[in-house]
């Protein structure tokens, strides 16, 4: 479904990714773990078009998407749920959800989808007319996820969805990820919480200073001694 070959990108003069090759197959949860500054978020930004690729290729469903604008990539079916949630603070919950469906023109189906997410996250329905900035961190994360799903993506890129959340909310987020996966969505998950991410991932990559150091099934990496020592702190 998604194939990334030898991808290099960065900011200004600094190259952050030096030739990363990864793949996500349909129906998979793929985790990317690694230390601060390894280039995990940068990878997602390059995939969704926020950062231009400097080398290498990105192919989605057989079509090259490196060099495409973010708004074009959304239309192809990739949703990027950014780090730190980034809800639109001065829009209401409802407007935020509509924003997620910006590329869609089937307004009846959009309405139905919104209702579906309200059912799933009743807290959002209760506050539908409030500004998104008034939500708690966990609620904002639910909103950010729902907003991303409103474009009906085939592949979801999630950047640190558990960051800064309470332990209960962290559990809930990982539950949701698995639910979405069961509904048929492919998920590329970037996480600092490597133990949890590896536990639910079918496959995973370990990123070290902009390069893939290790890859394998989630279970294997979880059991790998080096990964244990370097990233899982045990």
């Amino acid at each position, binding site marked *: 479904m998604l194939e990334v070959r030898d991808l290099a990108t960065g900011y200004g003069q600094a190259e952050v990714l030096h030739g990363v090759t990864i793949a996500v197959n349909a129906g998979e949860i793929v985790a990317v773990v690694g230390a601060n500054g390894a280039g995990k978020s940068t990878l997602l930004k390059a995939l*969704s*078009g*926020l950062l231009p690729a400097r080398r290498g290729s990105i192919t989605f469903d057989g079509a090259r998407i490196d060099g495409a*604008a*973010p*708004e074009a990539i*959304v*239309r192809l079916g990739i*949703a*990027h749920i*950014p780090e730190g949630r*980034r809800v*639109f*603070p*001065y*829009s209401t919950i409802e*407007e935020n959800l*509509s*924003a*997620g469906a*910006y*590329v869609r023109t089937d307004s009846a189906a959009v309405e139905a989808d919104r209702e579906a997410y309200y059912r799933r996250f009743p807290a959002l329905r209760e506050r539908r007319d409030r500004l998104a900035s008034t939500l708690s961190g966990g609620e904002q994360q639910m909103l950010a996820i729902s*907003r991303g799903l409103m*474009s009906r993506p085939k592949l979801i890129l999630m950047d640190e969805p558990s960051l800064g959340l309470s332990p209960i909310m962290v559990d809930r987020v990982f539950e949701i990820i698995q639910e979405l996966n069961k509904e048929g969505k492919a998920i590329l998950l970037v996480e600092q919480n490597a133990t949890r991410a590896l536990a639910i991932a079918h496959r995973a990559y370990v990123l070290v200073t902009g390069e893939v150091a290790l890859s394998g099934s989630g279970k294997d990496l979880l059991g790998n001694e080096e990964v244990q020592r370097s990233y899982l702190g045990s």
Partner: protein
Amino acid sequence: MEFLFFLQQIVNGLALGSVYALLAIGFSMIYGILRMMNFAHGDLYAFSAIFIGGVLAQGWPVYLALPLGIAVGALIGVLVERICYRPLRVIDRSVAIVSSLGAAFVLRNASEYLFGVRPAPFPLLLGQDKFVIGSVSFPLNALYILFVALAAIFLFNTFLKRARLGRGIMLVAQDIPTASLMGVPVNRTIVLVYAIGGALGVIGGVLYGSIYGIVFTDMGFPGTIKAFVAAIVGGIGNLAGAMIAGLFLGVIETLVVVYGGDWVGLPPGYRDAVAFVILIVFLLFRPTGLMGTRVSTAEAGTGASMGYSATTRRAIKLFGAIVVPRWMIGPAALLAAVAFPQLISDPYLLRIANLIMMYAIAVLGMNLVLGYCGQFHFGQAGFLAIGAYTTALLMLNFDVNVLVALAASGALAFALGVLVGIPAIRVRSDYLALVTFAFGEIVRLFILNSGFTRGPMGLPGIPVPEIFGFKIADNVGFFYYALALLVLAYVLCVQVTRSHIGRAWKAIYEDETAAEAMGINTARYKILAFGLSCFLGGIAGSYMATFSRFIAPNSFGVDLSVLVIIMLVLGGLGNLWGSIIGAAIMIGAVEILRPIAEFRIAFIGVVMILIPILRPQGIFSGIGNEAVPFRAWIERWRTKAATRHAR
């Protein structure tokens, strides 16, 4: 009766306010989205209004002329975005302001060139019908105008709420990268905002022409200022607020003109000062506007927050790049300067050299506040004026020695500079630019409207200065006088910037909050930066008075403040040598361009647009960064050789 007359003035004020409201909405929207002040907004409105007036005069029907004019306005808006703003989205905003002013200059020059400087007639499209109650007649067209403005604003607001493109605008205004992740085409949306902003401005221009029957190039800049004031008072990004504030501003202005003289003895010449006073009061006490704000605090994700400032202020090592030992440069330059009048006797060149040194002093001052401390200061012209008038008045009326007058000018400028610096504690960046700008304008308007300054006639016959018994009467004398002042100013700047003050400024520039957390009393250092900056402005002004022997308020307009800033940006922020060189280049360019005087302003405008785009760090820093000092070059060569051997 009295009340009906008052009511009539209110109606007139609302008509004028409608124009301001339309301007303010476009301005507020552009600012809300990109956090960039569009200084070209008013000139766009003037240009398009004159254009429509001209087309109508050619006999075009209204229903063709208006859409054409609105299209022209929208197109200009789009061009301004594409050329001046898009390349600068992620760059330090002090340079973006320069490029926006550049666009305003180009438009103004184009308007003067194409349409002439004289006011052009504009047909009273809304008729001159009046509605009479008793002996007071109400102009009906004022009511029509109010209606047209409200309708335009209502339509636009509905567009923002309901239409897909409108919703896209609201998303982009909040968070640009996330909006693009939602599939909103960011560039196209921003272009759309500029186009709509331009179109609304044109409608404002048409309404203005329809009330007053004339349109002219010079209505542009005041238009920008009114738009900005209304946008601030209404709360940036708050469109309803901008509208109400625009109407409010129109009413207040009209009332001041009509009643100001009777009530508080205010001459009508202060009409424009009203907007500035309102602006300053609001910025100081309610920077979020009358009704608070929706969009302006959405700092997250706007391109501007990605800041380039570290690059911008990379120290410029122009002279470090030359193999000549560094310590020799200063004395060598000084020696060359001292010998200059002996070698060059051409009075024209000497005059230019004197002008350059005068400006350099003002630019050095600007460098302290903007280049080192990072505080916007757009009122340097006001301080040159304070210095010039203090010196002139003291020497003319009290026969004071020039050095005493110089000291008094510097002291007064310093004191007032401290006063202007106080807002810097409360307001930041663009708002501060406007407060200081407004202060400069108030100084000019005060001089223009006061008796003891002889108003617009200026002060002629400023006596020949005498220092320690030497009369400074010719260009050579003034050359050494200027040189002495410049050297002192330069040494002052070097000493200050190398001291703890300079380090504190630098910290404030990089991150004010962090500086405060480190225990730096940011308020005190910011005020000091303003004081010293204005002090040097006052010194330069004092020199100007004695040198040119005649001063008039016209010389101290916004253009002067802007010129000083261009010189600074040209030479590089935070580079003292650069300030002198920037002054030299700009004065040189102005002289060289004398033969094509009609395009001079446009040329300066183009420079202002290009410099920030091509070299945001100033022209010279690149030379220093790329050319490697000799020793470092050797070092690098050795390392290379060593690695080769290792292989």
